[in-house]
């Protein structure tokens, strides 16, 4: 029953969706401004890969271990804050990034310890609360986090190199995109594919098989002598690490963030990405993210009348989409029917 064989067509679907969204957005933006906007399109691509990476963390937690984390944004914010603040203090960037990742993992484990053994949905309540409280900490501890004003002016990786290395600048000029922006795209995409490769390899490993067994039938896994608790915590930690990585990239890309950058909504976006792509199919996050941001951008470019789709209307549409998908196709685009709706 547990599917381990992946159909060959999945990558085709992923790239067709990505290409479709890209072309549609490109055409719409040309229609609006009269010319191709490479910088804008690169920005959309960065956002798509950023959210795909972020959602991949959730995909590990939920797709592999069945954990319902509704505070995933916490790992992203810990990654961003730790990386930026430590870099501002003069620490080396790899060290800052490492601390961010370790911090997010520890935070995730701290929440998992009292809840993972209990009902599945306790984790949802606890994580959503913890992420919100973390945000009030960022808001209130101004000495450390600069409070609501946010953090900016922190060192970013390869910043000098991107604009100083002649050939790269030439390439960037050729496509009319700021050199650093283009570099961020390459870095985010490369990181995403690397993380995806690692996650899919782990998923096929004995470790992943045990996790899926736990997800399907926890008692059986326990009776086979597997330490269910430890396995779940490991998945929680791995997901948080990936989330922290996406947080660091977010900080480097936008060069500014504040507590308001990390509302609960960001977590919900990741869930929508997961549901759209198909839970348990890790490469589906790219489909989900492309569709989500494709819809957002299309709605904005089309200037849908009466509903301001940049504000509350946008979120309303996303919520409705989530409910609709859960009712009509809960297994997502890549998923199979029996995966999500089966009786517990």
């Amino acid at each position, binding site marked *: 029953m547990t599917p381990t064989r992946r159909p060959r067509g999945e990558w085709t679907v992923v790239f067709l969706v990505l290409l479709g969204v890209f072309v549609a957005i490109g055409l719409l933006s040309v229609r609006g401004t009269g010319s191709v906007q490479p910088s804008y399109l690169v920005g959309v691509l960065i956002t798509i890969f950023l959210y795909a990476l972020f959602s991949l963390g959730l995909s590990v937690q939920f797709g592999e271990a069945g954990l319902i984390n509704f505070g995933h944004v916490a790992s992203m914010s810990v990654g961003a804050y730790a990386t930026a603040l430590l870099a501002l203090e003069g620490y080396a960037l790899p060290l800052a990034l490492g601390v961010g990742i370790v911090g997010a993992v520890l935070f995730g484990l701290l929440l998992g310890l009292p809840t993972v053994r209990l009902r599945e949905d306790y984790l949802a309540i*606890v994580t959503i609360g913890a992420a919100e409280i973390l945000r009030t900490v960022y808001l209130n501890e101004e000495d450390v986090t600069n409070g609501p004003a946010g953090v900016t002016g922190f060192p970013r990786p390869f910043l000098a190199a991107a604009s100083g290395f002649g050939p790269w600048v030439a390439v960037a000029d050729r496509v009319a995109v700021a050199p650093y922006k283009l570099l961020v795209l390459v870095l985010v995409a490369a990181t995403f594919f690397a993380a995806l490769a690692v996650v899919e390899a782990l998923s096929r490993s004995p470790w992943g098989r045990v996790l899926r067994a736990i997800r399907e039938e926890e008692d059986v896994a326990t009776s086979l002598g597997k330490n269910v608790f430890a396995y779940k915590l490991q998945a929680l930690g791995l997901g948080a690490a990936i989330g922290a990585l996406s947080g660091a990239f977010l900080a480097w890309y936008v060069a500014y963030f504040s507590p308001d950058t990390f509302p609960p909504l960001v977590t919900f976006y990741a869930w929508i990405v997961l549901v759209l792509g198909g839970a348990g199919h890790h490469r589906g996050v790219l489909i989900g993210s492309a569709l989500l941001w494709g819809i957002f951008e299309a709605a904005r470019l089309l200037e849908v009348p009466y509903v301001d789709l940049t504000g509350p209307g946008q979120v309303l549409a996303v919520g409705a989409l989530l409910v609709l998908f859960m009712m009509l196709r809960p297994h997502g685009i890549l998923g199979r029917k029996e995966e999500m709706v089966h009786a517990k």
Partner: protein
Amino acid sequence: MALAEVAQLAVNGLVVGGILALAGVGLSLVYGILNLSNFAHGDFMTLGAYLVFFLSVEATGALPAEVAAGLAAAIGFSALALVMFRKVSRREALGLSGVSAVLLVVGVFGGPIVRATVLAAVLVAIFAMALDLALWRPLRRRRATLVSLVIVSIGVALVVRHAVQLVWGSDFRNYDLPLRPAERFLGLSFTYAQIVALLTAIAAAILLEILLRRTRTGKAMRALADDVELARVCGIDTDRVILYVWALAGVLVTLAGVLLGLVTNLHPNLGWSLLLPTFAAVILGGIGSARGAVLGGLTIGLAMELSALSERLLSYKQAIAFGILILVLLVRPQGILGGKGR
């Protein structure tokens, strides 16, 4: 002096606690019966509070009275029709007539805000029942997992909250009631809104106790919260009782929303910001237990307000509810009054 300060904060705590209790009862019953941790519950509260704002402030004049009377007539007639076509039992028809009578009386004699509250409570109850028919019942039928239920409820929460924001904007609003001086009693000061909130919460708790302990429907609700399968075997029409539970939850949460709107201000995040403390109250009291929810609500409310004793703690009010929640999960995850060890 310090003691008076503590007592004053305790009063505030009881007010917040009463509101949490009202919101918590519905959340707890739904949680216990449907196994649904309804993340949209807080946004039902927001919706109710804003509907009251619309009916009492924006649509001033005779409209609410006529609408209330019209709705009363409609419900009365539909009760009659449903009995004639044997769609509902006589007992239910009696209940519907009761609702229409209350609407009529309040519509004619009540002040604008009372009128609006009753009307809004009915509307939110209908909305909650409609959602059961459209979403939760089909999901029950196909035995959806806990996870899918939670995700759908998050989707509903997003839709409701942002619909409210779309319609009424994100500025602070209030019910535009005349200002009254605070009453002093036993050296403590009570604002008018606080007195109303306390009395309403107490009255609602007493009525609820009667409903759940004395009436057949109430007993059926508690039976369901205990064990749905057992209740079904005993011949209880579970789908129907679940609808009543949603209606009850809708009414109580609207009441909580109005009271919160009276004590503070209206904002699209009104209910959402109270959701975590409400969940904490429900889990503390024991999922599925109405009495537990009241107990838990009062505890959490007191703890949150007493945090104002320390300037530094005040900014972490939410964190206190959260801390209690974690503590309960570690020590007694089934809650104070929860029966089954989970």
